[in-house]
C-alpha cells in the first residue's frame, strides 16, 4: 500500500490515469498521486471525487481538474483553457499561468492561479473562490453569479460585465469595468474576506490595498426607457 502513487503520461494514456483516479484510488490507500510528463495533455485529473492530493508535474492542457470535488490538485506549470471548470469543492492550484476561462462556472471550492490568468477568468462563476496572484485578462467574472474573485495584479478590459452577486477584489489597476459593474467602498467585512482568501491562497498582501467591485444591479430589471444603451 503506497502512500504516494506515481503515473507517467509518457507511458500511459490520460484515460488510464483518470480511470485509476475515478475507480481504483479509493481503497488503494494512496493519499497523494503524482503525474509526470503532462506535456500539455487535456483533461488530466478531471472529474475527481476523493480526498486525495494530485500533483501534475509540468505544463498541462485544457480542462485540467474540471468538475473537481474534494481533491486538492496542484499543477506545477501552466495550464491551457478552462482549468477547474465547474469546480464543486476542494482546491485547484496552478503554480504557473492559466489560459482562458479559468474556473469557469465554478460552484464551490478554491482555485488559485499563482501567475496570470488570461481572458474570461471566472466567467459565470456560481460560488467558488478564485485567487489570482498576477493579472487577469478581458471579460473576467463575466456574468459571475456568486463567489469571490480576488486579483492581486491588474485586470484587462470589461471586468465584471453583467455581474450578478459575485464580488471582485482587485489590488492593481482595473483597465475598465464592464456593463453594470461598479466600484464600492471596502468595508471591514470586505477586508476580512480578502484576508481569508489571501491566507487560504498563501499570499501576503495587505487587504487594505484592494478595491471592491460589485454589481450595480441596474440590469436586474428591464428598463424600457434606456433603449438598450447601458
Amino acid at each position, binding site marked *: 500500500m503506497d502512500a504516494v502513487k506515481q503515473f507517467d503520461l509518457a507511458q500511459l494514456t490520460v484515460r488510464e490515469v483518470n480511470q485509476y483516479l475515478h475507480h481504483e484510488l479509493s481503497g488503494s490507500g494512496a493519499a497523494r498521486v503524482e503525474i509526470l510528463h503532462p*506535456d*500539455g*495533455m*487535456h483533461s488530466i485529473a478531471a472529474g475527481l471525487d476523493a480526498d486525495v492530493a494530485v500533483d501534475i508535474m*509540468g*505544463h498541462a*492542457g*485544457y480542462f485540467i481538474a474540471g468538475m473537481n470535488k474534494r481533491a486538492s490538485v496542484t499543477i506545477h506549470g*501552466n495550464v*491551457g*483553457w478552462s482549468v477547474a471548470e465547474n469546480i464543486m469543492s476542494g482546491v485547484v492550484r496552478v503554480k504557473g*499561468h492559466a*489560459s*482562458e476561462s479559468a474556473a469557469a462556472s465554478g460552484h464551490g471550492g478554491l482555485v488559485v492561479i499563482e501567475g496570470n490568468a*488570461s*481572458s474570461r477568468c471566472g466567467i459565470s462563476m456560481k460560488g467558488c473562490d478564485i485567487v489570482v496572484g498576477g493579472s487577469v*485578462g*478581458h471579460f473576467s467574472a463575466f456574468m459571475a453569479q456568486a463567489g469571490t474573485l480576488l486579483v492581486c495584479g491588474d485586470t*484587462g478590459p470589461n471586468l465584471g460585465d453583467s455581474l450578478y452577486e459575485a464580488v471582485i477584489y482587485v489590488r492593481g489597476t482595473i483597465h475598465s469595468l464592464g456593463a453594470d459593474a461598479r466600484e464600492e467602498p471596502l468595508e471591514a467585512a470586505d477586508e476580512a474576506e480578502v484576508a481569508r482568501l489571501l491566507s487560504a491562497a498563501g499570499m501576503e498582501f495587505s487587504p487594505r490595498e484592494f478595491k471592491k467591485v460589485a454589481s450595480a444591479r441596474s440590469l436586474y430589471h428591464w428598463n424600457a426607457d434606456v433603449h438598450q444603451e447601458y
Partner: protein
Amino acid sequence: MCGIVGLLLKNRAWHEQLGELATPMLECMSTRGADSCGLAVFHRPLPLEKRRFSLYVADRDYDWQSFHAGFSSGTGGDARLESRFNHATEVTATPEADVRGWLRRSHPDVHLLSVGRVIDIFKDEGRPEEIAERFGFRDLQGTHAVGHTRMATESAVSPAHAHPFSAGQDFCLVHNGSLSNPYSVRRRLERRGIAFETDNDTEAGCRFLEWRMREGDTLEQAIEKSFRVLDGFYTFLMATADKMVLVRDPFACKPAVVAETADYVAVSSEFRSLAHLPGIREADVYEPAPEQIYSWTLSSNLTSRN
C-alpha cells in the same frame, strides 16, 4: 476548429532540422482538424532574379518530367524541377506573369500555390500525417515554417481551400477561426481588380493584407487596418521572407500559445504540440493578448514583440 503552428529558428545551426522539429507540431494538431493540411516553408533566398513556383496537381502519379520539359520550352527560360507525388517546385528566372500565362494556357489542371524567392507551399485534402509523409515534411530545411490542420466550418473541403493561403510573393497566412464578412471584403478588393481563387474566408483576409502591403503598408500596419475591416473570430499566423507574425481577434476567441527560447520562436494552437521541442521546459511560454501584434524578425537574428 483548426490547428495552426509556426516555428522560426533563430539558431542557424538548426535550419537543417526545420522539418524534423515542425512536422510533429503539425501532426499533433490533427486532433483540431483532419480534413486538410498544409505547410509553408521558407528556404534560404534564391538569387535576386530567381523565383520558386510551388505547384499542385490532383493526380499523385502526375508526370512532372514531361510537365517540366514543356515548362522550360513554353516559358522560354531555364528552370530546375523539384517534385514529389502531386507537388512540384519550378525554380526559374522567368517572370511571374509569363509563368502564370503559360500555366493558364497549357496546364489549367496545375495550380500555382505560391511564388517567391524563399517560400514553398505544400497543401492537400486528407489526414495531416499522410500529407506530411507524402510530401516529406520531415526532410524540409529552412529558416521558418507555418502550418495548418483544417476542420472546415465555412467553405468546402478541397485542396484549394486548405491553408496556407498565399498572395503576392513570399507571403502566406494560416487561420484558426471564421470571418463573418469575407464577401464584403472580397467585393471591395475585386473592385480594385484583385482576383480570387476560392470562396474561402481566409483568402479574403490574406488578399486584403497583401493588397495593403502593395499599397506601401508594412505587414504590421496592414494588420492594424484589418482590425477595422475584418470581422469575426480569428487567430492569424503569417509569414514573410524574414518574419513570422501572430495576431488574435479583439475578443480572443481562438487559442494560441507562444514558446520562445534563445534558439527558436514556436507558435501553436495548443501547448501539446510544442512539448517535444528541445528546451521547452525552460522556454518563455505565454499566451498572446487580444488585438496585439506579435512579430518576430529573422534577419537581425533578434526577436521583437510589439
